[in-house]
């Protein structure tokens, strides 16, 4: 049989991938983590993380991921920054083909490609992306000082970001297609008590209208089918996520109806030696700590699959 280059390849460098990488490097596996952009994943765009245990006073998303990266680096995790074009996962030796044509192989794979913001798919959304249409409040909020803007959505991300945006904007209108928020109570309380935040309930955005200089107004449709417009210079679309599954061989893996990967409680997919962790997994809770915990579980499952074979490297007694 063909020999694999690595015992484990981790695809994606968010909290799940970095934790799996930390465990694998510390466990002396021959491991490679492949990341297409920068390590940190979606947490990089989270302004403030208030509930990651151990960080008593809270931490910025960037700092938390900087620390996770440094932690994996401390154990010498090998990382490669490259875009993957395809994966073949069904055989004993799994292959990863990069965009530049390079082919890498491993005995086990952990998929941690995460998720990305869901789009509204309405006219004007693509056209004004980066010119008033945003999916990242922490990145783009400061461009809207003393301006009136809108947030679309009613979940934790939407409400936390609406609160963050009140630091800059003169008014934030939260547009939600339902009559109540899904966000956690503490965020709801803060939002309802914030005089800069207005709510438009049971309302959908049908069109984003603007000019050469960017977004100018939104066409809204209300629950009774009445239409109206709202003058804003920015619209932050925070209506959930879709899986980053474009590079995955979806004919080889079981997914749920929305494209997230189905695993068992040990993070095993339907293919032997292939695991998934973090936001890419089909599940209900998507927290940073879930992702990190699942990364650890997936790595331990991969080690178990590898049969706890003796490490490739000679024992190093200098540490």
């Amino acid at each position, binding site marked *: 049989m063909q020999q694999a280059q690595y015992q484990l390849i981790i695809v994606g460098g968010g909290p799940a991938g970095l934790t799996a990488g930390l465990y694998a490097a510390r466990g002396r596996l021959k491991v490679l983590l492949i990341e297409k*952009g920068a390590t*940190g994943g979606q947490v*990089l765009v989270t302004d403030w993380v208030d509930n990651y245990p151990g960080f008593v006073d809270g931490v910025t998303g960037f700092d938390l991921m900087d620390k996770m990266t440094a932690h994996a680096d401390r154990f010498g995790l090998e990382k490669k920054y*490259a875009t993957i074009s395809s994966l073949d996962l069904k055989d004993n030796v799994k292959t990863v083909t990069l965009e530049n044509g390079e082919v890498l192989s491993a005995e086990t794979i952990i998929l941690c490609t995460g998720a990305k913001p869901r789009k509204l798919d309405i006219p004007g959304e693509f056209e004004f992306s980066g010119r008033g249409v945003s999916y990242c409040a922490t990145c*783009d909020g*400061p461009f809207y000082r003393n301006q009136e803007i809108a947030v679309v959505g009613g979940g934790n991300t939407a409400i936390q970001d609406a609160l963050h945006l009140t630091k800059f904007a003169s008014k934030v209108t939260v547009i939600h297609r339902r009559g109540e928020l899904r966000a956690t109570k503490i965020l709801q309380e803060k939002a309802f008590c914030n005089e800069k935040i207005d709510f438009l309930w049971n309302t959908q955005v049908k069109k984003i209208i603007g000019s050469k200089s960017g977004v100018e107004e939104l066409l809204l449709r209300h629950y009774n089918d009445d239409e109206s417009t709202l003058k804003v210079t920015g619209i932050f679309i925070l209506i959930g996520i879709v899986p980053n599954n474009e590079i995955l061989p979806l004919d080889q893996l079981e997914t749920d109806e929305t494209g997230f990967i189905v695993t068992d409680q040990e993070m095993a997919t339907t293919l032997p030696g292939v695991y998934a962790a973090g936001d890419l997994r089909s599940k209900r809770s998507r927290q940073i700590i879930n992702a990190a915990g699942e990364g650890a579980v997936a790595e331990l499952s991969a080690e178990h699959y590898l049969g706890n074979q003796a490490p490739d490297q000679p024992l190093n007694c200098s540490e």
Partner: protein
Amino acid sequence: MASDNVMHISDSEFDSKVIGNPLPCLVDFWAPWCGPCKAIGPVIDELAAEFDGKVVIVKMNVDDNPATPGKFGIRAIPTLILFKGGEVVDQITGAVGKSQLQDLINKAI
């Protein structure tokens, strides 16, 4: 370190350093409060070393220099704009991978 190849410029230097530059220029509009901007920092440094002598890689802090981003309608960062002969060739918004940035730069050389 590769970052020696990256030039930090202000609004007042933009015309002379970018518009009037005989070489193509990639301008990275960033800010210290932007996580994705910091995350692509190392990639920008690598590109500056890789394209040294062919393309000038420039960073502009949008907090300290509001005029230039305003002129180009920038309302999201990181935004990277590629200039050649004083004209905009193309631009990318968001933290994208190195290969996408290489493809962008290659449009000007």
